[in-house]
């Protein structure tokens, strides 16, 4: 097991089947970014149909097989595959792998001064389970009937009677679930056991706290979905009736299954995962933003304790709000009241976090670096996303807004200009640590401003459409009279989406170009305090030449009387 001598390892052990948390982190990050791009492209295709329903897709339309497009005109089959797979890929194959698998793996052990994760082999297994799951998901596009098309939520009975792509979806999900299970066990153990001497819990960087709570969410929320997936798989393969009630008549024929099941059981188990999952998407983003704000204001985070408590509080409460996704399933008054109350309560810590971040800016010396721009943009974007969750959390307002574009706008503001901006911020921020080189500032700024404009161009009109009552998941929105007045907005949104796609080109050039041509920098280009910046860039196997000892809190910036405007956590006691 002599892995110290990593330079002796053959290529495939060093870069492919590596057990080094940094290599795995980068594998996760790059795979995840590619899936984000892929999921985004699915949506770019889909948006043509929404903007110009029934018109042939120009240029590339004829490249698709007849099972997907005829004469360049998208079929509903393909439309619903694109929709379901966009959601699945973005959430499970894109954002979570980047936020947790990528940043969590790469940054967290460095920030706590550990040589690696507690279980390096499990870590490798986690990535490869994810990879296999992802391959299965992609493969499902090529099976008869195409990929899953019952939405990323896969509500039965529709998903039970769907084509074989749904089975692939379930098997793929099973791999994802086990991958994140191994990851979360590793994260929790590492954070509890492997912190450097002196790094007590109240000196932990906020990012590590966010990853810690996220890991608990993954650990405890995913298994019920595993149970549900097993049951749906049984329904589809062994013809059980977990989710099939008695007396179904599908396509005019009485269903042959025994019946007696409950379609709502799936929804309960699914949302028991999927609501905490929302916080799995957002907490690491908050962690990244916290780090970047502290560093770029050159002052400690305001209310570090309030932030930590809020994150824990969100984590716990996120397990008791799930049924607010199910207000319209015939829920009784007591249950709806319970879930409305918990939903309103969980909004408070989010308000606290947002306020605390803004107050952290007060009195700072704000550097508008590229990571900081993205981190700052996260704040109002997450604000919009969070606030628009409130009307949806009130069962009464939800009667009108449920399953409309308002919902789409709401969670995309949280995840797309919210989390994604934070992830971009993280890429720009930690890039020099991973490569020893900076990304181009100019390209970064172009990327930021274009992305900011077009993100809002896509998602802001969604609220207007939602209020007008336009439902989601419509292959052709013009079928209904109440959708017609806002249909021009679909054109605006689609054009914004395509331009947003173009706006990512500077990022792609910047990312790959800077690996080879970026400006070389020292170990701590941002002059930050946390431990990862005391390691060499890129950190060698084992991370630190000597084990760091921690003597102070994570954000000792601009300490009065100090020589520099930052004191690293590992600087000896009394260092000024």
């Amino acid at each position, binding site marked *: *097991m*002599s*892995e*110290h001598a990593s330079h002796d390892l053959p290529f495939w052990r060093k870069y492919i089947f590596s057990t080094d948390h940094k290599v795995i982190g980068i594998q996760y990050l790059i795979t995840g970014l590619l899936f984000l791009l892929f999921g985004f492209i699915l949506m770019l295709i889909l948006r043509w149909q929404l903007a110009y329903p029934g018109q042939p897709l120009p240029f590339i339309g004829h490249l698709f097989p007849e099972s997907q497009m005829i004469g360049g005109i998208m079929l509903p089959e393909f439309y619903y595959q694109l929709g379901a797979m966009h959601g699945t890929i973005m959430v499970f194959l894109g954002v979570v792998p980047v936020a947790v698998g990528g940043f969590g793996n790469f940054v967290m052990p460095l920030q706590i001064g*550990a*040589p*690696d994760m*507690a*279980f*390096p082999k*499990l870590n490798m297994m986690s990535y490869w389970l994810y990879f296999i799951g992802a391959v299965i998901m992609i493969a499902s596009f090529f099976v008869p009937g195409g990929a899953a098309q019952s939405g990323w939520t896969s509500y039965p009975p529709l998903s039970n009677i769907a084509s074989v792509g749904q089975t692939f979806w379930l098997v793929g999900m099973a791999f994802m679930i086990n991958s994140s*299970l191994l990851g*979360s*066990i*590793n994260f*929790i*153990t590492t954070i*509890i*056991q*492997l912190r450097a001497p002196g790094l007590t819990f109240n000196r932990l960087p906020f990012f590590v706290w966010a990853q810690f709570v996220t890991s608990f969410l993954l*650990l*405890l*929320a*995913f*298994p*019920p*979905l*595993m*149970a*549900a997936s*097993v*049951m749906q798989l*049984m329904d589809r393969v*062994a*013809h*059980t*009736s*977990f989710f099939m009630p008695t007396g179904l008549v599908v396509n005019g024929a009485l269903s042959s*299954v*025994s019946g*007696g*099941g*409950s379609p709502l*059981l799936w929804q*309960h*188990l699914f949302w*028991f995962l999927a609501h905490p999952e929302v916080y799995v998407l957002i907490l690491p983003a908050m962690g990244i933003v916290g780090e970047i704000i502290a560093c770029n204001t050159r002052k400690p985070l305001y209310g570090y304790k309030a932030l930590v408590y809020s994150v824990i509080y969100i984590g716990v409460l996120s397990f008791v709000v799930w049924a607010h996704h199910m207000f319209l399933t015939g829920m009784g008054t007591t249950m709806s009241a319970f879930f409305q109350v918990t939903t309103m309560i969980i909004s408070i810590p989010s308000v606290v976090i947002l306020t605390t971040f803004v107050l952290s800016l007060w009195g700072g010396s704000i550097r508008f670096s590229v990571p900081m721009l993205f981190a700052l943009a996260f704040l109002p974007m997450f604000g919009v996303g969070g606030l628009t969750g409130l009307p949806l959390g009130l069962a009464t307002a939800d009667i009108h807004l449920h399953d409309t574009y308002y919902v789409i706008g709401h969670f995309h503001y949280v995840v797309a200009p919210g989390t994604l901006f934070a992830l971009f911020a993280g890429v720009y921020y930690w890039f020099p640590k991973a490569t020893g080189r900076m990304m181009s500032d100019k390209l970064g700024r172009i990327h930021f401003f274009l992305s900011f404009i077009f993100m809002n161009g896509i998602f802001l009109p969604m609220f207007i459409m939602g209020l007008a009552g336009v439902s989601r998941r419509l292959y052709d929105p013009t079928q209904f009279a109440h959708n017609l007045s806002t249909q021009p907005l679909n054109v605006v949104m689609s054009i914004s989406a395509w331009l947003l796609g173009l706006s990512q080109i500077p990022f792609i050039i910047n990312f790959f170009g800077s690996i080879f041509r970026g400006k070389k920098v020292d170990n701590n280009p941002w002059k930050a305090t946390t431990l990862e910046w005391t390691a060499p860039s890129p950190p060698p196997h*084992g991370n630190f030449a000597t084990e760091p000892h921690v003597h102070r809190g994570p954000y000792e910036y601009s300490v009065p009387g100090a020589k520099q405007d930052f004191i690293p956590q590992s600087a000896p006691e009394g260092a000024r």
Partner: protein
Amino acid sequence: MSGDSGIRYISHPHPVTGVTNSKLGIWCFLASEVMLFGGLFSAYILLRMGAASWPEGSAILNVPLATLNTMILITSSVTMVMSWASLALKDFKKYRWFMAVTILLGLAFLVVKGFEYAHKFEHHHTPSTNTFYAIYFTLTGLHGLHVLGGILVNTYFLFPGSALWKKDPDQFMGRIEAAGLYWHFVDLVWIFLFPVLYLL
């Protein structure tokens, strides 16, 4: 420091938490297992409450066989914990003996289970018969897979994995303890499955 990787607390407990990495890790895993079976148990409750009629387990399942299986699993839990205790007493021979018995008992459990399944299939009682059989086969099947997984892990520790005993006895004991915790958990799940499916 232990191991060449520089990762601490593999063999010896962390001075503050008092546990090794593997122990904390296996407990995290068991916590998630609680939620996995929690999801299935809540499915059981929901299906049963929503059902017009629910068959009495003892009327259609084989209670004596299941009782036998319960005894087998309980016994294997004792032999498992004895194998760990033998290591604590530095008695490696006894460890092997107890571990082998544990594995055999696990296999015996699966064989009995297999007879039970075969009997059901002969009478055309399959998962698709009704929701009772659906949840019965799913719960016991998933539990059976857990038993199988435990047997594989234990077999590894009986043969190739036991080489670690010479190199780092503390680490090896930690591994056996973790394997044991998992095995006891599987037993614990069965303790609930047995009355819920067979007796009620």
